[in-house]
């Protein structure tokens, strides 16, 4: 079980449920340590006082806020507490809303709330969970974690209550803010074809369908390097250009999806667009078959990279 990050209570009207906060995610990323090149020993990052030039122990580290003038105002933890007028350790539910009303742009990090093990806490927790699940409502609440106040969405997931921190409205951008505007009205015929194509590619969402291939590939490279093998660095990829005839590309996609399915469609896209990255993801026997179809001289003795090169050069 993950370790609690915070403990306090979830407050709902006059009901307070003592809870612990746990991260709902685990870090499975591949991490590298900084090493000193010449002796391969670990690099430590030390906090050093710019005035004394000496390392500073954690107990002597304070917080400073830099004003526009460049002057730094130092704040103690007690002074910072003054910004939290109630000095609460509660997650205060302010409102209940429909889940669909919350744009996922606001979601930041998900956590679980786990009740203390006493009967009163457990009962109140399950009561709130039951009621929220039944009504499909999400609670909007606030709480302070370390030196930041968070707006959070509290909702149910299976037998548990989750808490997801949210961004405030002035922390997100609209399409207008980034300069996306004046998207033209599309032609009906093209939209109809695109609808047919996306429906042909429709399936149910199951997160287990998607593994982290990047993690696997990176670990495989580490292993290769450990064995002293050379690692080939792919060239900086180029972005594909727009298709010259959108309607034709949509129609061809639908046809090939019907005749050959998803995999054939992917292979067609890679071959027609001469995209080395997409070609490299295809099995070697497919590359060989495609090369022969295109009247390229190819033999099974060629490596995958040679086949990709032949297909992109033609």
């Amino acid at each position, binding site marked *: 079980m993950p370790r609690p990050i915070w403990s306090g209570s979830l407050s709902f009207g006059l009901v307070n449920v003592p809870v612990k906060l746990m991260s709902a995610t685990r870090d499975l990323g591949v991490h590298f340590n900084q090493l000193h090149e010449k002796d391969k020993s670990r690099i430590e990052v030390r906090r050093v006082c*710019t005035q004394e030039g000496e390392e*500073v122990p954690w107990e002597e580290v304070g917080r400073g806020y*830099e004003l526009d003038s460049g002057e730094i105002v130092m704040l103690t933890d007690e002074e910072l507490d003054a*910004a939290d007028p109630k000095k609460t350790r509660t997650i205060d539910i*302010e409102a209940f*809303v429909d889940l669909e009303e919350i744009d996922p742009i606001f979601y930041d990090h998900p956590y679980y709330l786990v009740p203390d093990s006493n009967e009163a806490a457990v009962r109140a927790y399950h009561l709130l969970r039951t009621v929220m699940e039944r009504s499909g409502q999400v609670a909007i609440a606030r709480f302070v974690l370390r030196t930041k106040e968070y707006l959070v969405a509290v909702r149910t997931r299976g037998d548990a209550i989750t808490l997801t921190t949210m961004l405030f409205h002035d922390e997100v951008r609209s399409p207008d803010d980034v300069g996306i505007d004046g998207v*033209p009205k599309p032609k009906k015929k093209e939209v109809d074809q695109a609808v047919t194509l996306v429906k042909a590619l429709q399936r149910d969402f199951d997160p287990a369908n998607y593994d982290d291939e990047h993690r696997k590939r990176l670990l495989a490279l580490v292993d290769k390097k450990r064995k002293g093998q050379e690692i080939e660095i792919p060239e900086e990829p180029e972005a594909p250009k*727009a298709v010259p005839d959108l309607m034709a590309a949509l129609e061809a996609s639908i046809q090939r*999806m019907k005749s050959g399915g998803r995999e054939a469609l992917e292979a067609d896209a890679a071959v027609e667009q001469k995209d080395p990255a997409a070609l490299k993801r295809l099995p070697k026997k497919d590359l060989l078959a495609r090369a022969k179809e295109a009247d390229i001289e190819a033999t099974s003795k060629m490596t995958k990279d040679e086949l990709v090169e032949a297909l992109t050069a033609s």
Partner: protein
Amino acid sequence: MRENQEFMAARSLWNGAIRFGLVNVPIKVYGAASSKQIRFREMHITDAAPLEHRRVCAKEDKEVPYDEVVRGYETSPGRYVVMTKDEIQAPARERGKTIDLEDFVPADQIDPIYFDTPYWLGPQQDADEAYSVLLAALEKTGLVGIGRFALRTREQLVALYPVDGALRISTMRFHDEVVDDDDLDLPQPSKKVTDREAKMADALVSSLQTEFDPSDYDDTYRERVLEVVEAKAQGKQIVAPAAAEDSTSTDLMALLEQSVSGARKQKKPKAKARKTKAKA
């Protein structure tokens, strides 16, 4: 504050193309969210001097210049495989400059717990038409594209969906990165929730029900921290308030009843009240 940063023209983070079937839609990627969390500098309490971080070789106990730092993957304690920057980035480069859509799934099947960082996609020059067609098809079907895309050094799983007349992607957590509720060992109550309790809790939820409007919620804490900074800069003494008392009663039914009658008296939801005040 550095408010002026906001008004700088948005720069794209990445240029490439969405690919589904044989169709390419050349797009630009823009950040959609940026935290305004107050950043503090680390200070030395005893002499009020700022701290700096120095890289020190653990063996030599000497500062190491950045160009002597390499990255190593620890295969067993103290044993590292050193990888160059290019080698670490090789898997991301293999993805190419495309957002490859693999599937289209119904939007309501995705638990938002999987969503991570959002980005807006804008059409590149000459791609307006293809962009608007894909946008319209997703709006019409309620489907979300699921695909893969390499931003900077990491390939990500992404969901592509339409919002406010534009396309957006959210990077997604992988299934094994999300903790399941079964892993939590949640304690179970010995007595079931009674109907009376559930009804009363329902009434309380209903009394607090409102429409979600993000602008109802301001980061008042950020504002208050800046006030404290201001006061301190002017040499004023800062006094922290005493801790609030939590209610200690455990009579669930009584607390629910009191909450419901209290909520009824207070007609406007708290959030709305704050908004009116802020606008006045």
